[in-house]
Every structure is written in C-alpha cells, then in structure tokens.
C-alpha cells in the first residue's frame, strides 16, 4: 500500500461555464477538512475538480506524493483516482441490490488496497438490516448510509463528501451524523467535506477551508478560524468557539465531567467517554462574560471561570462588542470568543493585552465520538 498522503495541495483557477474559480489551498491530508461557505461559492466545484469529474485546464492537485493534475499535462482520469465520493443524493444504482451497490467499487479497487472489509463497513454504518431490502424502498437516510458504505468499500485514500446530509430531513441527519463521527474515529482516511451548515462543521471538522466567491478566503484549524477577527465567522450572531478537549475526570454525582483544553479546564455536563478519551466542546460567544477578578468559591453559580488574556475586540453592532481572547493568564492557550455590551467594555476599562477572567455560562459537549449503536434505533 502506498504511504498515507501528508498534505493535499490544490490550485484550481479558471472558468467552468459562467463560474470563475480561483481556489488555492493546502490542507493536511488527515482528519476531516470542511469546505465551508454560502451556496454558490464553488465548494462543490472544487470537490468535483479533486475527483476529476470537472476539469480546469489550469488546475494543479497533489495528494501526498501523487500528482493527480498538473495543468493540461497531467490529468489522472476519475476512475484512476483512489477517491470515494458521496454525492448530495445517494445515487444508488437502481438496477443493483444493496450488497451489489456496496461491492461495486470494492470489486474494482486495486488489488493491494483492501484495508476496509465488507463486514466492517456493514457494522460501522449499521447496514445489516438493509442488505436484503430492495434499494427502491430504503429511506433517504438509509440510502445515504449505503452510499457512504459503497464509497468506503472502494478503498479510497481520500473521501470526498458533497453535503451528504443536505438532502435529508432533520431526523435522518441526526441518524447519520453519529456514523460520520464514528468513521472519523475508526478509519484513518482523510475527508474533504463540503457543507454550508456551520453546525455540521463544528461537529465534524478539524480543518476549515472558508470559501467565498470561488476563492479560498482562509485555511486553517477550525478553532483558530472560528475566532479569527479577520473572518466573518466571529461576526455571526451564533459565533462560537469549538475546542478539542480530553476527559480528565467524571463526577457521576452531578453528571459533570472535567475536561482539559489548551490553557484551561472546564466542567461539562453530559455523557463523555472514559477518562483520557477525546471530546469536543462548543462555547457560544454570547455565553461568555468577562470579569476583572475571579469570584471566590461559592460566590457565583457559574462553574467555569477561566483566566484569559484579551487579544482584541471589535464592535458587533451598536451595543455589543465581540472580544477575542486566549485562554490562560499568559494568553498561550486556545482561542475563545466573548460577546459583551459596549457599555461593560467601557465601564470595566478593558483593553487588548489585559489579563482578565472569562465566566463561561454554558459549555455544550459536541456529540462526538459517542457510540451510534447506543442510540435508540428506529427498529419497528
């Protein structure tokens, strides 16, 4: 087997139909990279170019050491690229059974590339009950799960997902998301994930490519981009920060878990994995307030009070200010956003560079790494 690619370098410049694309980015070929942006910003086009389904004469694409496109000189046709592609609609082959759909790519995969077994995929995606049903009677969520399994069984070294949940209703979405999280943890395949839903991105992505008008406006780790003053994400009304954390202790009496994040510790409600396992927490900017002095113990109902350093601030509207923070008194920790009134900002005499305390009113565990099989299944 070829070594796992280290980075994915793409530069797609040119015109496709009436659309002008100028997307250049380099991302680690590891974990989930979200291509995020409004509809019509070129996310899907980029994904199609990576798969070779669309071709820009000026395109350059390197995955690890393999060159898949180099201008007009090198162009690996789509069927020779070891990618799995999950389209918005499941697009199952209607003339084939569910197992035949699943095995379509597996039968054609290169002989050496058989790391993902049929039974493993069936287990991972909960496909057991679907195997002997006709494709035409499957629900939207079930079809999409089969499509994901079919893509995985083609033994991809890069998985491309084009808004795989957008055609599904809320219920089917919630059904599939845990499976995607499991995939991320169970399989070591880099994923390019196109989405216009920030909630999906917060839940799944490690790296973010922010797309706007056919350009890659920013590229980087999710948590860094979400709190980047130069980007529109921090200005959204629902601006938040997502932090990757590790479980340190569990307090069964109160149903809380203590987790560590870079530069601090948090108490989080909800079910987490064993001590030492990773989890992801989400903190809304509007749930964070600032205080000069930390309240003593038993003086505030707010459990999470963290030393932070102010990096900057920007007015959000007439009365609100978005404050950019770094965890830790030294400001060396993870980024955090706070949204406070302009009046408080002035009253407290806050300024960039100051060390203050962030009172975090709400920390939500982003359901991640939870066991999808433990969920209530829609069994009759």
């Amino acid at each position: 087997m070829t070594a796992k690619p280290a980075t994915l370098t793409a530069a797609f410049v040119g015109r496709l139909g009436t659309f002008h694309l100028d997307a250049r980015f380099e991302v680690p070929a590891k974990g989930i990279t979200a291509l995020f942006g409004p509809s019509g910003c070129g996310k899907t086009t980029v994904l199609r170019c990576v798969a070779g389904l669309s071709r820009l004469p000026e395109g350059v694409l390197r995955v690890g050491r393999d060159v898949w496109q180099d201008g007009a000189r090198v162009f690996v046709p789509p069927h020779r690229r070891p990618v799995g592609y999950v389209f918005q609609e499941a697009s199952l082959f209607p003339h084939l059974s569910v197992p035949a759909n699943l095995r379509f790519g597996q039968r054609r995969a290169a002989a050496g590339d058989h790391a993902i077994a049929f039974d493993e995929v069936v287990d991972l995606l909960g496909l057991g009950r679907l195997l002997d049903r006709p494709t035409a009677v499957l629900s939207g969520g079930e079809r999409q799960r089969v499509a994901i399994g079919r893509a995985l069984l083609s033994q991809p070294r890069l998985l491309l997902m084009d808004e795989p949940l957008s055609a599904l209703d809320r219920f089917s979405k919630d059904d599939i998301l845990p499976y995607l999280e499991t995939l991320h943890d169970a399989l070591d395949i880099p994923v390019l994930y196109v989405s216009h839903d920030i909630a999906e991105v917060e839940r799944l992505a490690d790296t973010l490519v922010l797309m706007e008008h056919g350009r890659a406006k920013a590229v980087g780790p999710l948590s860094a981009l979400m709190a980047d003053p130069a980007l529109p994400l921090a200005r959204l009304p629902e601006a938040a920060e997502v932090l990757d954390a590790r479980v340190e202790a569990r307090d069964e009496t109160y149903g809380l878990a203590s987790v560590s994040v870079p530069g601090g510790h948090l108490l989080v409600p909800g079910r987490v994995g064993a001590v030492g396992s990773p989890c992801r927490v989400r903190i809304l900017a509007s749930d964070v307030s600032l205080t000069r002095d930390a309240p003593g113990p038993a003086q505030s109902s707010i459990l999470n009070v963290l030393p932070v350093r102010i990096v900057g601030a920007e007015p959000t509207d007439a009365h609100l200010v978005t404050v950019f923070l770094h965890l830790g008194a030294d400001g060396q920790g993870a980024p955090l956003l706070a949204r406070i009134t302009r009046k408080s900002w002035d009253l407290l005499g806050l300024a960039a560079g100051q060390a203050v305390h962030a009172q975090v009113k709400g920390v939500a565990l982003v359901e991640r790494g939870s066991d999808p099989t433990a969920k209530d299944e829609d069994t009759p």
Partner: protein
Amino acid sequence: MSGEMWDAVWLTATLAAIVTVLLLVVATPIAWWLARSRSPVKEVVGALVTLPLVLPPTVLGFYLLVAFSPNSPLGQGIAAVFGQGLPFTFEGLVVASVIHSLPFAVQPIRNAFEAIGDRPLEVAATLRASPWDAFWTVAVPLARPGFLAGAVLGFAHTVGEFGVVLMIGGNIPGETKVLSIAIYDYVETLQWTQAHILAAGMLGFSFVVLLAMRLIEKRLGWGTGR
C-alpha cells in the same frame, strides 16, 4: 396455408431477426454518441439517421439501388469483395432494412441513454469503473427499456416494410419475397383468401408485439428509484 406462404413467413422472420441483431449493434454506438456528445455536428448526424423515418421508402430504395448497382463504385467494390452484388439478393435486403429501420432503433436507445443523465456514470467513475466498464455495467442495464423498445420497433418495422424491399429486392420467392410483397402479389393476382390470411396475421402480430412491449416495459420499470 400453402408452402409458398410459409416461405414468405419464414423469410420475413429470418430477415427481421438478422436485421434486429445488426440494428442493435449499429444503433447502440450511434445512440450513445448522440446522447453524450457535445459536438456541434451531432444534430446533423441525428437528422441524417432520422431521414429514413420521413422519406418515402421508394426514394430510399431508389438511392440504395443506385448506390449498390454494378455501375457504381460502391456496387463494384462490394461485388469484388463478396463475389456478388447486393441488389435482388437477401443480403441486399438485410443492408437496406438496417438503414431503413435505423431511426426506429436509435431513437428509443438514445432517449434511454439521455434519461440516465450524468450522475450514475460519475458515480461509477468514482468507484473505479472505466468508461467502457461503466457503459456495460451501468448505462446499458439502466437503458434496458430503450433497448427493448428499439429492438421491438426495429423488428416490427422490418417485418412491415414494403417500398424499400420492392425497390432493392424485387420479388424472388425464397430470396426476397417477404410477407408484404407476397400480400401485394396475392392481391394483384386476385387471390383474396391468401391475402386475407397473411394480412390478418400481420395485424394480429403487430398488435401483440406492441402490447407485449408495453407490458414488459411496465414490469421492468425501475425508473422510480433514484
């Protein structure tokens, strides 16, 4: 029924069967190209292929006769290679019938290929299927109703043709005297009973074919699943 009538029935069935097989072989690549190509000349080719649909069969038969005649370069070439010319032979009938029935096979197959759209073929490509592989394992199975319709229409149309056969094949019993010619012959010689038997047989056959096609299409109908 007389031996002469059976000869005509058998000859017609053989001709139609051979023509149908050849039609599928010839029409499939043409239909695929017409359905998938973005070439500007594609509609020109499409119109050429469709011409036999609107031309009087005698016009087509006349040009084919001229083209295959021993005086034309094409006719001389064929005679030189195969040792005999095409006019007034069974082989000549086959070639003329394929050309004449081509639009009846191309059109439904092309429509079926177009109805598939790009998506299933893109899916196949991302699952490592080469274009050739995807054509046979995805496009052809999905276009099956179109192939069925093309084959049935091509067969039925060949069975029913008259003008082209008369021009290029003449009226040689056991060689070029197909059903439609035989009926014409019986009417000309006032043998109304024989004409009635064959004509009624054709009528019944055509009706059964069309009905069967419709029913099979319905049973195959997997156009519903996406």
